């Protein structure tokens, strides 16, 4: 069905590229990107648990990868994505309740998700570095 009609050149409706980015639009896209990132990140959690179940040698091997420079970037990104996606989810729950839909509130809670996720991630990792 879709294949036969796609051979003809059809008029397109205006899409992503012609709109000026707004914070609500960017946070919507970031919500999806963090979701996809976390999807594959869950494989890292499973991998880490499997290695822990196999013994000290395999655990130390996985930990050495996670504690490399790239490993730290991935772990910090995973933490941020998890917190950001959770805050984005709360934002969606507020909307589901029919609240926070005025222009002013939409922009405020969109900014709150990115500022909240960035500061909570920083707080967690800085606290972790100080305590270790």
């Amino acid at each position, binding site marked *: 069905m*879709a*294949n036969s009609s*796609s051979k003809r050149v059809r008029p397109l409706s205006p899409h992503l590229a012609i709109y000026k980015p707004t914070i609500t639009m960017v946070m919507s896209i970031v919500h*999806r990107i963090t*979701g*996809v990132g*976390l*999807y594959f990140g*869950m*494989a890292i*959690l*499973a*991998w880490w*648990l*499997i290695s*822990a*179940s196999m013994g*000290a040698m395999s*655990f*130390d091997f996985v930990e050495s990868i996670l*504690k490399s420079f790239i490993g730290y970037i991935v*772990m910090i990104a995973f*933490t941020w994505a*998890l*917190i950001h996606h*959770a805050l984005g*989810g*709360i934002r*969606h*729950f507020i909307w*589901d309740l029919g609240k926070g839909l005025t222009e002013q509130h939409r922009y405020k809670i969109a900014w709150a998700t990115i500022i909240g996720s960035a500061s909570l991630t920083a707080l*967690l990792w800085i*606290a*972790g570095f100080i305590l*270790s």
Partner: protein
Amino acid sequence: MSYKTPLGKVRGLGSAKAGTDHFWEQRMSALANLPLVIGVLIIGFIVWGKPYNEVIAFLQHPLVAIILALFVINTCVHMRLGMQVVIEDYVNSDFQKVIFLALNTFFCVLVGFSALYALAKINFGM
């Protein structure tokens, strides 16, 4: 020339009648995940940088093991629903769509069961 009736031609081409369930399961697994994510962040914070023996002892605490197991199950349900929407949005050929939707389910089941297997082994069988 087809001998199908007009009704026969369109049967099965409408909605799958699964949209409301999908929406509701997405929201319920999201709601359940909020406390679980907080638990997992605390667990990760405590465990990060600890030596092997301490990590295993920590993962053997019932509260830690149960929170992790619930998080894994609930997240795998939630992420399967989410990835399904992404695939339906971006994959346009019917054949590829079916393949990716199947791979999506396989991936989520594989990740979920691997993590649960590891947790079970750490807690019952080391």
